[in-house]
């Protein structure tokens, strides 16, 4: 049993709001991923945190792409770390819908 804690700084708010950052402390387990931590936050701390993911383990849907400490990465394959605060932001270059969700829908799959 490790009792370490990971600290995540997460960009919040919808596209038209000024961005703000919330910090979460998440129990750290060896081998856990950033997506594990986000799912834990939604179930245990803040259900309103918006994230996008589908396949969880297989790394095939690519829906979980975000910016982790400024670099584009998959939340489901990036390991969590407990040694310092990690910053999460939505995929850059796309309109933000809310929190970590950017509008990654292909243009021809939108409603309008």
């Amino acid at each position, binding site marked *: 049993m490790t009792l370490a804690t990971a600290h995540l700084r997460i960009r919040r708010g919808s596209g038209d709001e000024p961005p703000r950052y919330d910090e979460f402390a998440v129990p750290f387990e060896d081998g856990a991923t950033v997506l594990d931590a986000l799912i834990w936050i939604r*179930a245990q701390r803040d*259900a309103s945190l918006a*994230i996008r993911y589908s*396949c969880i383990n*297989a790394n*095939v*849907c690519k829906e979980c792409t975000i910016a982790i400490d400024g670099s584009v990465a998959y939340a489901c394959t990036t390991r969590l770390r407990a040694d310092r605060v990690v910053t999460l932001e939505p995929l850059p270059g796309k309109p933000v819908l809310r929190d970590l969700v950017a509008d990654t829908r*292909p243009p021809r799959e939108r*409603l309008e």
Partner: protein
Amino acid sequence: MTHIETDVLIVGAGGAGMYAAIGAARAGAKRVLLVDKSLVGRGGATIMAQMTVAAALGEEAPDDWPLHLADTLAAGRGLCDENLAAVLCREAPVRIREMDGWRVGWARRDGHIAQVTAPGHSRPRCCYVDFLNTGPAVAATLRRRVSRIDAIRRVSNLIVTDIVTTGGEAVGAVALDQAEGEPVTIATNAVVIAAGGLSRLFRRNSASANMGGDGYALALAAGADLVDMEFVQFFPIGHLAPRLVGMDPIMWDPFRYKLGGRLLDGNGREFLADYGSDESTGYTTPRDIATYAIQKEVAAGRGSPHGGVYLSFTHVPRGDLDAAFGPVIERLARNGIDLGRMPVEVAPIAHYQMGGIAVDETMATRVPGLYAAGEAVGGANGANRLSGNAIPEALVFGERAGRFAAAHAKARRDGWDAKRAAPAVDAIRRLRDGQRGNASAAALLEELREVMWREVGPFRTAAGLVGAANRLASMRRALADLTVEPGRAFNPTLADWFELRAGLIAAEAVTQAALARQESRGAHQREDFPDTDPAWTCRQRVALRPDGGLALKAVR
């Protein structure tokens, strides 16, 4: 509010939904609307399939579809709907060859499509795309085809919450547009439910986030029946530990095909033979028996540290390991796993729903205008599914559902009635303005998965099932009192609420059917009724009563 008119609406864009769209357009439907709560072609099980697709092509060795049918019926433990199983086996080769023409890239050997023998198949009839790329290749090929057909309109991040009926016929749907948090109404002459399975309802699963049983709940509420809901397939050797990222938990199966591999209890002892399975000639144990054996070992206190058993390849020479695993050896090493030196821990996980929406051979439910396809359909696989039968089921049933739905749509006039859609539209509007309660749907979804895993999983007893049914019913009553945060654009608490509402009904259908079936057969194992009872060689149908409860009926 956005209102869309279409000829055929397809709910869910996995393999079944995308093929249904192609089938409907080819049958002459001018307007086909293909929607998915996730992104088209990405959200469900199809893109995750790693292994094989069964079809009696006879490329590797002589084969014919009646042989495939005989294997399917034997695996189904006497419960397959023979008509549906026959359609599946007869048309699988047609779809597989059509996809070959669309350059899906089936692996080839000496110029012909390579086919291997998966457990339960009497012939080498399972094709695949290298390396572990079957699902992604199938999904990408269908996505490409669909995008080239003008009649098909695609919409992603649209969650269908209700099917609209008038006079007992399906005439439309109400959906939540996640990006805007707005209700959307859809008038249509036919609906195909291709929303996939429900394995996400169990804590241990191989599922994506979008396999929570929406399709079953939509069908029940529209007046259709479900069948065989108690038969959830548990995949016996899901990866358990050490934590592995970037690889699906069912990844060990192909290597069991190639190398055998030994299943060992916590003390390092082989145990499958104690359950009547002889693996001296290779990997032959069917999924239901392996799942049962592993659960029994764990229950007897002989499990591995994380509550499973060991899968070991340490007896296999390094060179053979490298040849069989190829680049996967590297990926395992990055996860700290050296198969030459250590076993991994594996355990059963929920993987596939044999049961589902009751349809005839045209994929029509008993509600005129309502069709179903893919894993959402029940019956073809009976009490246990052969590996490799699910992708062909999605493709074959999808194509048919689209084709017959288009024919139905052509013969019908617009029956849309906005008044009938109003309650569902109002529900979305009310909830997105927020609701104060004492728990979140996200937290209840976690509890739902825990209850289903503990009491309705691979091991079932009357007491456990009754407890689960009571808890599910009280969770259903609590829906009105859950917290939903106000907010429109991509408000996850709103999506959670609808996911929970659907999941609870689907879970209750599984639980009630499992409680009523007082025997063990295939994937349904009752501790208190360990034997198969010939009197139970019948299917159970589930319907929704007007008071919201579920009604069960055995059909022979």
